[in-house]
């Protein structure tokens, strides 16, 4: 388990990383970036897979199944719309 102060340190450092990453972003990219960060929390898919992977009984399995469907939607949908938006950004030199 990742517990106690080690957990706290990881949380704190990751939070600073997220804060720093967005601090220097021009406003023109805010929408794609919101969408991109939405894609990144699609990593919940791996957790949902594990939850379904060790669920027992009908109800746990059903909830786990719904969780994986939702998480896959988050990851794939987030990727597709972010990619579509970013693909359109080009300069007049291109």
């Amino acid at each position, binding site marked *: 388990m990742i517990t106690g102060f080690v957990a706290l340190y990881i949380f704190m450092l990751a939070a600073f990383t997220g804060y720093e990453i967005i601090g220097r972003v021009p406003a*023109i*990219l805010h929408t794609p970036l919101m969408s991109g960060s939405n894609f990144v929390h699609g990593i*919940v898919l791996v957790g949902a897979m594990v939850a379904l992977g060790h669920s027992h009984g009908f109800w746990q399995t059903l909830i*786990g199944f719904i969780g994986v469907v939702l998480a896959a939607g988050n*990851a794939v949908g987030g990727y597709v719309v972010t990619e579509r938006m970013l693909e359109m*950004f*080009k300069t007049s030199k291109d």
Partner: protein
Amino acid sequence: MGFWDFTVQASYFVAAVLFILGLKRMGSPKTARNGILWAGAGMVLATVVTFWHPSMEAGFFRYFLIVLAIAIGGIGAWISGKRVQMTAMPQMVALYNGMGGGAAAAIALVEMYSGAAWTHGTGVLALAILGAIIGAVSFSGSLIAWGKLEGVDWMKFSLPKAHIINGVVAAASVIVGLMLLTADDPSVFMITLLLALTLALGVLVTNPIGGADMPVVISLYNALTGLAVAFEGFVLSNPAMIIAGTVVGAAGSLLTLLMAKGMNRSISNVLFAGFGVEDGAQAEGPEGEMKSVEAFDAAASFAYSDSLIIVPGYGLAVAQAQHKLWEFVQALQKEHDVDVKFAIHPVAGRMPGHMNVLLAEAGVPYDLIFDLEEINSEFPNADAALVIGANDVVNPAARTDESSPIYGMPILDVDKAREVYVIKRGKGTGFSGVQNGLFFGENTRMVFGDAKQVCTDLAAGLKQL
């Protein structure tokens, strides 16, 4: 540590690095496209190795279910994501985000129903419960946000004494959460009750918020989903979830603050008071004569200017006029050698950067597009400014009139340009309900009509010169 355990952990590490580098690359227009590819590679890697995760129990049926669920969610999202219009992007992001929140809540439920959440100590249990609450609120709240922006009628309702009901449901959620935290032998009933309460809470909290504030709410739910994912990552001892979730939680919180600041609203203001509430009283505004001209005359004036700054608003996108506008601008640049720039207010469109996406879709290169801070000093030197479908973001009252509801909001100083042209459907006010003094200005000319039609007429006008 066995071979597969090592492989899984190493892959999660690589995925976390790819997520952070990917997000960083998304922060600059040059590398942004590349950034999503990096993050995408991390996601595929993490997903594939998870089939060999040590916590997975064997069984063909189990693996079949996982693959089936990924296929259902993935294919559905792929098709909807490819089809969605760029103007509908904010609500689509809300929908995908809600799904992530729902998934985090589902993980918490499985761990709680099985009792596993009670085996790791109070700290981890608290995170499991907190993740369940946040995830469920984000799930149902995002669905309501989606429904509001999409205009889904059956989702519309209003409750009497909404803030009292909200308070009761919120308090009940906290109490049930605390009871679960201190329970030795958690009952299925209590866990289900927590789920029901928190799902209701998301609906109730989001429902009274006006459509104009919805982008801030979507961004807030995005950050909350990130947090919920991180918390469930602690429950499952999954570092990839912890790091990716926390990074998104922090980045999303900052993004939410930036958005609210751009709209001159505080987060608590957005959440606890609808913009429409005080609008009942008609604000007194400047009056006078609006001077209207034909598109042809405006086109002629632009053709003989040296510099033109265009301010596009959401009205431009609603009219789907961005392609016609870009055709007109290209003609101005090539045949009349006019220096054309686009000025974008932080909240143009439905969320920050939305207008940039809409212009990019029409083929406008991003080096012609400028932020408020970059361009405001250039208006006094511009021969002409053209406002299309924007209103409140160019209202000088935000600078001068302390009694105005939009006082203090940063605006584009369009009124300082030598000549101002405004394309507008009619004589109405913006969503804040405030009359705009710019439209009555000495140097302002109004071109009334549908934005797409006017842009077509402008281009036709150029050809007649």
